[in-house]
């Protein structure tokens, strides 16, 4: 009896201490969480981390911000060493399955309320029915157009109304009129001329499926008729109609050319709105939805940065507190103010509605709810992306579309083999 009551008392005390705010009592050794973060400017990182520091003063944060060009390699080395370090890391959403399959992500299903997030965000965070990464931002490309150049060419602006969105066929006709080789002026460009992220929807618009549902087979998918048709169309932008500048693979360069009035129509991510406004205040531009094929449906890409927890962490409680804090409404509003990725929390869209009354945000909100398709969930996404990316590159420079795609499909199948066991 005494023993039981003693145990009860202990349990009670433990529960009570869990409820109480952190006691600033003795100088307990602080817990340190190591965080690997994207190399965004310090002003977009520190306020978030400081917010957590204020909420959990007993936890110390050691934040490492890694430049984009080396973030995946650095994570491979650090996670590949299979140590408890880092506790938290920024995770590109389509790599969720890759990290999860290799045991680098803690299952967050019990700790996240899926109902709070947009559907596409939860899909992008899931692998085999479980949520492995905490959605932290989303993405959506739109069509930017240079009003002056369209006016000069006598072209009506593409409608911002998602129901009346331009078809690719309409876009090409406009682009032909907007192209002027003598002035090195181009009608149209993708921001990412080679990345599956921006180009998969072309084929998906025609009913193509990016990968088998189990995530292991590309043959019969990326080399199917919709893909061949879509990417033949894409190839003609460069080789036949010559409306797109070839080989501009650095995604930051087409944006500069748009700003310099050398590209009239640009399909690019929403973050470019701020870039163009700040860098090129003289450019008058409008925003319209991502086009679809005349006979196809509207499909847009999505997914962006998520947050992962290392399952080997020695401080799971603190790491989960970090996730909880970063998933809070207040922090996600702060994050949107710092770096306006499309929000993943429904509450941000609802409570901050007045921020989203512009054409662009109305489009984005619609796309995320109705047309967004995350990249395929497969542990071999890095391999898939790289092989398809190389194939798309070669297609833009005139390679045989059907042959290139089927060779890529076979290579992907071979690479994905290793994840089946």
């Amino acid at each position, binding site marked *: 009896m005494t023993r039981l009551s003693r145990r009860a008392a202990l349990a009670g005390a433990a529960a009570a201490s869990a409820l109480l705010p952190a006691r600033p009592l003795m100088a307990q050794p602080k817990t340190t969480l190591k965080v690997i973060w994207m190399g965004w400017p310090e002003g977009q990182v520190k306020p978030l981390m400081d917010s957590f520091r204020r909420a959990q003063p007993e936890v110390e944060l050691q934040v490492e911000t890694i430049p984009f060009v080396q973030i995946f390699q650095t994570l491979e080395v650090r996670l590949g060493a299979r140590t408890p370090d880092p506790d938290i890391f920024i995770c590109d959403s389509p790599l969720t399955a890759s990290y999860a399959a290799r045991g680098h992500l803690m299952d967050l299903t019990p700790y996240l309320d899926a109902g709070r997030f947009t559907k596409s965000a939860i899909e992008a965070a899931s692998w085999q029915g479980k949520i492995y990464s905490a959605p932290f931002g989303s993405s959506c490309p739109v069509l930017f157009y240079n009003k002056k150049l369209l006016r000069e060419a006598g072209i009506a602006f593409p409608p911002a109304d998602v129901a009346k969105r331009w078809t690719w066929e309409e876009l090409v006709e406009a682009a032909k009129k907007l192209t002027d080789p003598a002035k090195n002026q181009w009608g149209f460009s993708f921001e990412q001329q080679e990345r599956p992220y921006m180009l998969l929807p072309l084929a998906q618009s025609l009913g193509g499926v990016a990968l088998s549902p189990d995530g292991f087979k590309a043959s019969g998918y990326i080399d199917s008729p919709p893909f061949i048709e879509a990417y033949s169309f894409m190839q003609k932008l460069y080789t036949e109609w010559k409306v797109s500048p070839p*080989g501009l693979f650095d995604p930051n360069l087409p944006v500069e050319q748009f700003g310099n009035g050398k590209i009239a129509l640009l399909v690019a991510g929403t973050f470019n709105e701020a870039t163009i406004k700040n860098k090129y205040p003289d450019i008058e531009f409008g925003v319209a939805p991502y086009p679809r094929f005349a006979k196809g449906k509207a499909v847009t890409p999505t997914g962006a940065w998520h947050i992962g927890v290392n399952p080997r962490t020695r401080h799971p409680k603190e790491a989960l507190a970090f996730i909880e804090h970063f998933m809070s409404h207040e922090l996600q509003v702060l994050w949107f103010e710092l770096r306006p990725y499309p929000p993943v929390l429904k509450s941000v869209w609802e409570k901050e509605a007045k921020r989203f009354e512009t054409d662009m945000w109305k489009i984005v909100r619609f796309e995320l709810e109705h047309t967004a398709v995350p990249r395929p969930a497969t542990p071999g996404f890095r391999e898939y992306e790289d092989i398809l990316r190389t194939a798309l590159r070669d297609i833009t420079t005139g390679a045989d579309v059907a042959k290139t795609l089927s060779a890529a499909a076979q290579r992907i199948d071979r690479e994905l083999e290793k994840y089946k066991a």
Partner: protein
Amino acid sequence: MKHGFRESWVIVALFLAPALLGLALFRLAPILIALIGGFTGTRLTGETVWVGLQNYERLVSDPAFWNSVRITLLFNVIINPLQILIALGLALLVLRPTPLVPLFRAAYMAPMTVSLSLTSILWAILLEPTMGPVNGLLRALGVPPQPFWRSEEQALATLIAVASWKGVGYWMVFLLAGLLLVPKELHEAAMIDGASAWQRFRWVTLPLMRRPLAFVLVADTAANFLLFAPMYLITQGGPNGATALLMFEAYQAAFTYLDRGRALALSTVILLVIGLLAVLELRLLRERES
């Protein structure tokens, strides 16, 4: 080569120990682990399993590997002699410190202060097919724009040119240091004997430059075999495999295809090829026993 001094091992060890300890710990031990890793595979869960020669068997049966080997050898057969000849030419050009020459020396070394990744970013922009200044210049001269990095035919040549832009000043430094160590008296004596400039270079300078040249040849070979930043940042090994050098393949295997065994097998091949070439190059330039 004249025989060196025979000293007690204590003296020799004293000289060797600091550097060799560092090398053993921070280079040889990891290399040994990597070499062994070439015979292993990694399970998804991270356990390493012994697979014997399987990684190597897969390599030799993979046409992409042989394409890489072919391109890597082609690249090196051209770039190494090219860089060293240019570097030697530059070193001779700036050897005599007449007015302004020190400034030119510094100017020639300037590209080596530009890091490899920045070199790649810079030359990707300069050689862009549509917006690059080089094509702007060509257009102004009435020459049609060239695709450079973006064409199967020009990509490797572009890579050689850009790597040489960065490299020749660097190798010049070593050759210049070598030339400065050639005693002036020998030249003066040869001049009194009526030797022409070419004869002096051929029979006085060159024999004394064997060792610096051997160093530059071996170091340059290693540097060019291990180059991969331009492929990673600009060409992705393309177009159509035109710049798929072995080192880039190894990098891709490690960080994109997450196939550690293959990456380490490729690294081992790279080590062996550089080592073999180094032995050949050192043989070629060894001082003849006199």
